[in-house]
């Protein structure tokens, strides 16, 4: 299916507005509904943005209370104007004049939908507008399925830090150390390409490219035995990561727009339930991305929900939405199997629930929010004794997780509480 020409107006895919969270639409509409005046609306926008924890630190346990720096205010203002433009584009808001905004009837309905708790409906509506305008999700879905013939739909973006490749920070000091790391890195990446995509790529030439760029920008000294500035360590490692990520996207997968536009689509797709992306798959170093939706002529399978049928060629976009009654046994099996896979390496009853979620979502190709709702159901069945396994969920984090990792992952909320660790027991007596 990937060979078919996509009808997407490609020039616009790369120009998606610069924000990730769909909740921004809610925050903006709420601000305008209250204050038509742009400046006043912006003040409320800032408050709501923090309240909903939108931005890079969404899962921080405490909200920062300090004053915003002028730089931050500029960034917020930029986001504000981006959300306004996109809302106007979708007919949710309108510009009365330079300093006055208004909310349309469509906008009011959408606001209501969110406030009544219909987040799925809210996201689906926005999806529809986005797809109508950009056709980006169809483009990405077809790209995904076309580019990996070995494992359908899976895209990988491998990344290994020097530490993972057994370089010690204390002895990682000179240009030659970095060069040696770069070689280990391309070996590891090539292995992954062969393993997961089933093809061979020669990365040496590009590796030379990174090294010479690092030297040009004076992050690395010219001579092999010279020490680089220790504070540049993180910058150097980040260059490698960014370079290879962009390389994968452009050269291997043929996505011709910017890396940042890809990330924005990915993140939006994840919230809608069309795409799945994670940097924390337990047995993979780097990021994996795969679809939880399909573009196809037609299906009558009850496990799919039609969400877009306005493409010119008559194809349709379906999201994978298996019903609990149907998937229950399969879900519990995947949960137990993955639990024991993780537990084997852990020597503890309790294992990281977020890692478990990664594996189960991948096995069943379901979005995170669906995992949460299924686990919630399974957990309640277990409490009433109607399940042949015993589940115990806890709040505590495991020791090996640094706070940084903790903050960037969507928590699992079960029975009204955030849960981080899980223990399962298979009841041998049966029920």
């Amino acid at each position, binding site marked *: 299916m990937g060979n078919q020409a996509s009808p997407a107006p490609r020039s616009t895919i790369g120009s998606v507005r610069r924000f990730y969270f769909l909740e921004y639409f809610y925050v903006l509409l709420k601000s305008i509904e209250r204050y038509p005046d742009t400046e006043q609306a912006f003040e409320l926008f800032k408050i709501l943005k923090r309240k909903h924890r939108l931005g890079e630190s969404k899962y921080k346990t405490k909200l920062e209370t300090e004053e915003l720096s002028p730089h931050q205010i500029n960034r917020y203002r930029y986001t504000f104007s981006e959300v306004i433009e996109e809302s106007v584009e979708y007919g949710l808001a309108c510009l009365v004049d330079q300093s006055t905004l208004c909310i349309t009837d469509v906008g009011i309905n959408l606001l209501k939908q969110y406030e009544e708790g219909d987040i799925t409906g809210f996201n689906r509506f926005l999806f529809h507008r986005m797809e109508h305008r950009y056709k980006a999700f169809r483009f990405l879905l077809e790209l995904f399925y076309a580019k990996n013939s070995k494992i359908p739909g899976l895209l990988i973006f491998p990344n290994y830090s020097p530490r993972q490749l*057994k370089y010690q920070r204390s002895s990682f000091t000179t240009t030659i150390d970095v060069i040696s790391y770069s070689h280990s890195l391309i070996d590891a990446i090539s292995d992954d390409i062969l393993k997961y995509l089933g093809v061979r790529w020669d990365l040496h030439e590009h590796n030379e490219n990174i090294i010479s760029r690092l030297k040009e920008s004076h992050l690395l000294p010219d001579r092999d035995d010279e020490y680089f500035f220790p504070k540049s360590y993180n910058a150097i490692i980040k260059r490698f990561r960014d370079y290879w990520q962009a390389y994968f996207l452009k050269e291997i997968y043929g996505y011709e727009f910017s890396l940042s536009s890809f990330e924005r689509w990915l993140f939006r797709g994840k919230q809608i339930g069309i795409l799945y992306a994670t940097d924390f798959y337990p047995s*993979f170093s780097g990021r994996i991305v795969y679809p939880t939706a399909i573009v196809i002529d037609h299906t009558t399978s009850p496990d799919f929900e039609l969400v877009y049928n306005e493409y010119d060629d008559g194809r349709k976009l379906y999201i994978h939405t298996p019903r609990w009654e149907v998937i229950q046994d399969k879900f519990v099996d995947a949960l137990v199997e993955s639990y024991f896979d993780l537990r084997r390496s852990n020597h503890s009853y309790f294992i990281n629930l977020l890692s478990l979620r990664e594996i189960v979502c991948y096995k069943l190709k379901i979005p995170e929010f669906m995992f949460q709702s299924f686990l919630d159901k399974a957990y309640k069945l277990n409490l009433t004794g109607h399940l042949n396994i015993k589940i115990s969920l806890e709040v505590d984090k495991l020791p090996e997780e640094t706070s940084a990792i903790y903050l960037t992952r969507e928590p699992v909320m079960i029975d009204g509480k955030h849960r981080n660790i899980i223990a399962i027991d298979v009841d041998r007596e049966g029920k």
Partner: protein
Amino acid sequence: MSRLIGKPKNQIDLSVLSKYARFYLSENPFPAHPYVNQESTDKRTNGFVYEMEIRKNEYDRIKDNFLQAPQVDANHPRLGYIVDTSYVGRGNGKSAFLLNLQQNINRAYCIDISNEINKCFAVYVSPRPSGQTKSFYNVVDLIFQAIIRTNVIDDTLAILRYDALSRISPEALSRIEDEDEDSIVSKLSTEEWFKDNSVDYADVAHQIKENESIKKLDPDFPLNIETAWIGSRIATKNDFHEYYERLRPQERLNFLFTEMIYFFTAAGFNGAYVLVDDFERIPNFQTARQKTDFATELRSALFDGFTLNAITGFFNIILVLHAGVHRLISEAWAESGMGNRSPIELTTEAYHVIPFEKLTQGHALLLLKKYLSEYRTVPEYSDSLIPFTERAIYRIGELSEYNAARMLKMAHDLLERISVIAEQEMIDEAFVEASRDKLALDSNRAIPEIGEVASEDLIKKAQAGEW
């Protein structure tokens, strides 16, 4: 085939015995599977090799707040918690600590530790895995089985007989007075000894019945077989076991928490410590209802039920909690009122809560040194780290997140590795680094790679719906 000249294809390699000799070790001191098993005969894994110094803080807290707290004071702490605050998972040395605590207490029944304030015994209880221990009655069974495993019933019987003899036949007693205590116990456990020394055991048995506590015992109590009208004989631990097995759950609870307390107090005991390891195994498999019931029954047995134990606080229970368990049970604890009796929260003033800390560099050194010293062939080196360097041990500690079991396992593997590399003299930091790949470190090892995971193919699934 000749049985005289036929040879097997493989001969035992006798040189193996000297594999560790160049490091002044008789064998590999570290366990290959570092999980404590109190039934094991190998001192590497049964908790026998133990450096109490590592857990001095924890031990002192238990000593001050439990072992030295006068049992006769009804307000002494009856329920305590050892809370693992280290988050390094299993193998942090909790079981080894408990088994040693049990040994320490039982060595002289706490008389030495408490400066003669208490005479208490200790039992180690480990709930059975996979939810087989769910109700409080299951725990009662485990406690009783643990009592059977120790010598405390034999010792109690011997104390009662010794006491009776001192009244009715001091001269018979004088013949064994100077023997060691184990031998006295074993002699006083058979009717033969009494016959040999011309003592009618029936007299002894009746003298024992004069004890005020013994008088309160139920007529069916196993000891009363000694004074039965028909078929009287000397009672043994086995009689207690068999009797217990015949009881119904509610009767068992009463037997343990009332009858047995009369029995033990007759012999001068004023308390007992029940050390419950791996407590998480219980609530892990309980429903919310079962948790609350459990907590209520525990409260009733310890504090305000109808048993003698609730009145005297004879049995002190110490629960060992894994880092996550606290929240698992706090709700049930609050609902059952246990939260007021013995709150589980770790606060500085809560003397009944003992934090079990993460190990440090210094502990890592002590731990490995202790194991090495147990297997030294040359006494002069008993305090040495050979073949490990100090820095290597620090590195081992870091790599295993200072988890005791993982450190021991890694030390075991490193020693195995170096023993076959003749030119390698020391296990230094570089050797640890170079061996990392070979050590079972990579936590992702057992997790299947994405390519191996059976994952739903959505396109196929959607198309299958068409047929």
